[in-house]
């Protein structure tokens, strides 16, 4: 994670160099860019060493009689914790560089937590699917990115709703639904995946 955070901050720094340093434009698109960075780079955080089970760990868990579903939930919580740290640090960089306002702090905090939970669950599920092969580093983002699009939409539209004073409840519910579906899918498939 300590490599991914500077990499994400660097991406936020590079984007204005490519599209122009118009402060008004950057303030307008800043929140969207921030969430894109969280989605793309957050996947790398969620499949880091702290949240992915190696073959030896899997064998040890089996010998100890650990329920695979419990292992999946534990890895997801671990990934979500790391993602919250990632979101906070990169978020601070985004606010400084792009100058957008933080509106509705409690709702923003809830959005950060839900997105971290969703990405953590999807990342752990994808990591379980891919296993510990060498192709995993590229394949996990390819699997997670399309499935996490409702999180990206929900997070960006929630901020937009807060900015315009609209209700953001539907977007929060959309993100919560993704979290729920990912959790159910991960728990139900944990045992077949471990057996495979």
């Amino acid at each position: 994670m300590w490599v991914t955070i500077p990499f994400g901050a660097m991406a936020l720094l590079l984007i204005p160099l490519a599209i122009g340093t118009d402060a008004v434009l950057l303030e307008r698109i800043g929140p969207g860019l921030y969430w894109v960075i969280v989605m793309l780079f957050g996947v790398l955080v969620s499949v880091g060493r702290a949240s992915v089970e190696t073959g030896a760990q899997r064998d040890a868990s089996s010998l100890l009689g650990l329920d695979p579903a419990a292992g999946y939930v534990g890895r997801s919580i671990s990934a979500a914790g790391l993602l919250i740290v990632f979101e906070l640090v990169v978020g601070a960089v985004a606010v400084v560089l792009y100058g957008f306002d933080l509106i509705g702090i409690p709702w923003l905090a809830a959005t950060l937590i839900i997105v971290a939970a969703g990405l953590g669950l999807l990342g752990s599920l994808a990591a379980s699917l891919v296993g510990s092969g060498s192709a995993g580093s590229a394949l996990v983002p390819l699997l997670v990115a399309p499935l996490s699009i409702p999180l990206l939409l929900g997070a960006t539209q929630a901020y937009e709703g807060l900015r315009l004073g609209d209700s953001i409840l539907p977007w929060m519910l959309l993100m919560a639904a993704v979290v729920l579906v990912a959790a159910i899918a991960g728990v139900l498939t944990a045992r077949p995946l471990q057996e495979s």
Partner: protein
Amino acid sequence: MPSEIPNRSWPWVAIGVSVAVALTLAMISPADAVQGDLVRIMYVHVPAAWLAYLAFAVTLVCSAGYLFTKNLRWDRLAASSAAIGVYFTGLAIALGMIWARPTWGVWWTWDARLTLTAIMFFVYVGYLALRRTTADPRTRAGRAAVLGIVGAVQIPLVHFSVVWWRTLHQPASILRPDGPAIQDPIMRWALLAGVIAFSVIYTSLMVKRVELHRLNDAIHLAERGEARPVAGASVAAPNLDEGARDV
């Protein structure tokens, strides 16, 4: 065995006849009042999209079938159908873009149907990529089956996107509660012939791909069987005669 030759050529005959009929009907059907001759692209675009749905639905059913039975036949069917579904989705997107350029003035627009179809395409590209990461048929089948089920969430999203959101893409023309929107019978037959032709192509490709997967699995299992060391082979028996001489 002379009787095998006609059997092998039946799929090609079926494909040739169905495609010829579909092309003929597509050519003789009248031009659309609004779209003109561009409507003829729809006789390929729409069947490709429908067959993509069908292919991914088959992947869903066969993935569940594998998880319940652990029979590799289900996995081969799921994998074959997903690969063909990716081809059909790519074809539907490409044809849609060719149609959109003169009609909408752009190759691509951020429409809900288009965007979700592109996402569905990448989900199943990921499915195929996932399968390539594991050589062992059983490990691969278990992992792919989970993604085959999770990925199927995209199918209803894509299909109903034109109902749930206000999109530039037109709503369903055939599968509507109030009946088909296409009034001209030749147009309807042209579309139906396209669907039949694509179904024949899908079935033929499925047969070939399932056989290919079966042979791949057989080769893998045979290689693994030959390479497997015999238990205790690494332990050499002590040479007692030589040891006795040293003493």
